């Protein structure tokens, strides 16, 4: 009983680690651009598809596949930024520009899904698994190697982002643009250039999460795009829009909650519980668990 509870929490932490990384990428873009990028997940899906395509033709190592997933996500993300966000940033003061950009990113999502199914027409492709090693015994519990790797990667990405945003010169510019875009521009920071680099960074972070998800699940489908966008949005909104600690908290909470509700109530209830949590939070505490200090 207690063992089940602990085991589910452990498994949930593994899933939650990738959700947290997904939400970090999402919230980075939102913080700077104040726009939701619906094509975030589909761009990651395209990266995972590029890696899958490569693994079908040559047999590269896992590190190469991870690099291809990240690079593919960045390239797809750059395309989204150029087509959907850069033109609207110029008209950023016009009301509705954010909505138009969001709908444009949805249109690009459609493009990505079709491109993926044209490149790899089957419904499902296996993705090389991280390891075939048996779970490590941890007292009465079993610690899956994937969980361990996911947690380690998530921790490394958090540390890297923290350093980039709070210790590097780039981070000062990003935070300035996030908090006061006009004042940042007046001090000589080019918001457009900051946005481009944040977009690339977020896509790379998302690509890393996408690789973790694909290799943990051992498969990719075109549905991965929608799945990634939805999980990232859920974790981001639960934690608090635009908040980095919130993204981590939201992702971990979502992962653990899903693991428990799946175990005790079944797969449909798992999703129901996740959406119910988001809906109730929005109704009662719209700014999330750990809200960003600055509002746009």
């Amino acid at each position, binding site marked *: 009983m207690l063992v089940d509870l602990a085991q589910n929490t452990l498994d949930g932490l593994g899933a939650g680690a990738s959700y947290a990384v997904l939400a970090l990428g999402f919230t980075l873009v939102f913080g700077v651009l104040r726009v939701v990028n619906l094509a975030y997940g589909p761009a990651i899906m395209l990266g995972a598809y590029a890696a899958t395509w490569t693994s079908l033709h040559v047999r590269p190592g896992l590190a190469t596949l991870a690099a291809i997933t990240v690079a593919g996500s960045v390239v797809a993300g750059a395309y989204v930024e150029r*087509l959907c966000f850069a033109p609207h940033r110029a008209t950023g003061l016009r009301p509705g520009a954010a*909505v138009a950009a969001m709908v444009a990113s*949805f249109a*690009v999502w*459609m493009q990505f899904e079709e491109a993926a199914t*044209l490149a790899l027409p089957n419904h499902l492709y296996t993705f090389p698994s991280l390891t075939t090693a048996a779970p490590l015994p941890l007292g009465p519990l079993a610690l899956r190697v994937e969980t361990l790797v996911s947690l380690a990667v998530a921790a490394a990405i958090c540390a890297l982002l923290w350093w980039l945003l709070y210790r590097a010169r780039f981070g000062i510019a990003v935070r300035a643009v996030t908090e006061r875009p006009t004042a940042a521009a007046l001090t000589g920071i080019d918001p457009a250039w900051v946005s481009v680099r944040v977009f690339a960074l977020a896509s790379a972070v998302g690509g890393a999460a996408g690789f973790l998800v694909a290799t943990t699940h051992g498969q990719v489908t075109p549905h991965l795009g929608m799945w990634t966008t939805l999980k990232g949005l859920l974790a981001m909104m639960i934690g608090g829009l635009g908040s980095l600690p919130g993204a981590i908290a939201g992702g971990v909470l979502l992962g653990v909650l899903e693991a428990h509700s799946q175990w005790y109530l079944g797969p449909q209830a798992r999703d129901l519980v996740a*959406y119910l949590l988001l809906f109730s939070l929005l*109704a009662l505490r719209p700014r999330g668990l750990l809200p960003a200090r600055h509002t746009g």
Partner: protein
Amino acid sequence: MDAYTVGVFTNIGLLSFLGLSAYVLLITGELSFGQQAFFGVGAYAAGVGTAMFGLPLVVATAAAMASGALAALVVGLPTLRLRGLYFAMATLAAAEMFRILFELLHWQRDVGGERVGPDGTQGFRGIRWVFEQGIEAAGFLIVVYGVLALLVAALVFVERSRLGATLRAVGEDPEQAASLGIDILRLKLGVVAAAGAVAGLGGALYAHHTTYVEPRNFDIMLGVHGLAYALIGGLGTALGPLLGVVLDIGLLEGSRLFAGYRMIVFGGLVALLLVIRPRGILDERIVHGWRHRAWRPR
């Protein structure tokens, strides 16, 4: 018209209801990712009415509209104080909950020795009222467009009235509208209910066109399409969403142009179009121009 053309035109008509549902909210300044849920509620409610309890389609459709409006109010009441993305996310979460509830819904009864009704993920089969009445596909097409014409006429009428001006004022600047004495919350509740009823109406007709609905028909993809139709077609007039559907279904799928690459072409066109016209093709400026031209003596 051959069966394929009739099918394409019927789909255009049915999806227009979803686009109009999103449109009504958009002009009031609310973005919903969840109108597909009320489309689904309408589809299920109308199916229950005709297939399970033998009601005529008109009565079942009225019940579907009421159910759509009621469901929209249940979602809208706790979330209407949210703005922008927060409201959009709340409607998305609610719509996904509705979809999962459809998956969990098992309610069947014997009708003429057959089990009829929603059967969880297996969906709801045998919504055959139209077929049993001997109405052919072309006949149903006329029904769909008749209802759609009435709805568009009603919307155009409302938009030209004082209420229409009030709605757009709230959409443009809610604080200023409130300072003019407009009761925003009450107005928005009305709009949410009306948008839910419009979606429910479309869902009722949709269920009777396909004779079969399943929960995954009403996923987020359907909702974002409805939203995109309204934004592509334009937020200036109720004809905008219809234009959006025609462009997607009619022009690209119907003509079978770019077979296999349709979404790549359409997606790119939409993204570019939104750069040039962020509020769609028939936006407020164009529509305003029409009206003035109509009044100007030649």
